[in-house]
């Protein structure tokens, strides 16, 4: 059998906008020979029940992601800036519209 020597179709990540007014959200991935076919396949795989009004596809190997081991230095600095949240501020209860 020759299947492992066969060239695999590249992997695409699929993003779907479920309706106008919402952002595209990652739905999953699939293999396709090119971007056009990725969109056609994504239509059949991820929107069989009206889940989408628009599809984005991008080759998985073109995505740059933050590294999980950098999670601390990337995101921890935001943890100690409580003053960025509205609940940080003491306002008398009887003052409205704040």
């Amino acid at each position: 059998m020759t299947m492992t020597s066969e060239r695999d179709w590249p992997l695409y990540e699929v993003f779907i906008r479920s309706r106008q007014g919402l952002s595209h959200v990652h739905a999953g991935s699939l293999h396709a020979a090119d971007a056009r076919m990725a969109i056609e396949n994504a239509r059949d795989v991820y929107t069989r029940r009206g889940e989408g009004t628009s599809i984005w596809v991008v080759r998985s190997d073109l995505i740059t992601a933050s590294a999980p081991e950098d999670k601390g230095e990337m995101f921890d600095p935001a943890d100690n800036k409580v003053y960025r949240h509205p609940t940080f501020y003491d306002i008398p209860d009887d003052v409205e519209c704040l």
Partner: protein
Amino acid sequence: MPEAIDEDPGRRSRFDAHVAAEGKVEPQDWMPADYRKTLVRQISQHAHSEIIGMQPEGNWITRAPSLRRKCILIAKVQDEAGHGLYLYSAAETLGTSRQQMEADLLAGKAKYSSIFNYPTLTWADVGAIGWLVDGAAITNQIPLCRCSYGPYARAMVRVCKEESFHQRQGFELMMALSKGTPVQRRMAQDALNRWWWPSVAMFGPSDKDSVHGAQSAAWRIKRFSNDELRQRFIDMTVKQAQALGLTIPDPDLKFNKETGHWEIGAIDWDEFWRVVKGDGPCNRQRMAHRRKAHEDGAWVRAAALAHAAKARARAEKKVA
């Protein structure tokens, strides 16, 4: 994935604590090599089951008794293909390639659910599969929506939403037959007789004989034991059979008033293992069909790549 470089016990225990506290795991996170291996095995087996599972029902598409039933069956079989693809894509996030998984299936190294090694002899079998096999699958799959591995859990959410139609259309089909002519009723009962025990066995070996159970439970991959899920399915299905006016083919079936559960007779585990090991009624046929489909499609896959390369070259020439 280069996993062996880091199996230090500190990392391992932090991971175990994270999943035990219902923390989720995403593809780029560190995970123990055997967690990864367990998931690849389980998710790819699950994907293979969806793909092989298209065959028994696909067998009836051209012979569906009405256009309505034909549309439903085509949509259902297409869903199974979709479920296979969601699951392959979830497994690929663990660093295994689609080609490797396909190769393992075609070489007979990877398993798929044994239930699909039984034949669909009459139209009623299409109803019995939807009602019983998909009913059992849903019972198994709903807890998997909360599995610790994010991509698997998300795939299962989609699958479960869609399986609900599969089960309902099967029950409706059985209902139509059981309210039909005496011949149709007999057909429905015959299908239940043949699919009941294999469906009950779908949950896998009894807890006392199950090898993967404890670790999978600790890792929050499996939430309930095989026997717990089986009992849930039995309780649900016995009542549905009553609604259909059909008889569960088990003379030992009885309701235990104290526990509130239906108790079944002995499962024929010899038959179960015989089919798992390759000697079911259709194992060879299913694999031969899958291999042929894969080989017949080789030129299409190659042609699509060649076409894509040509289109790209043409586009680049235009820009230059």
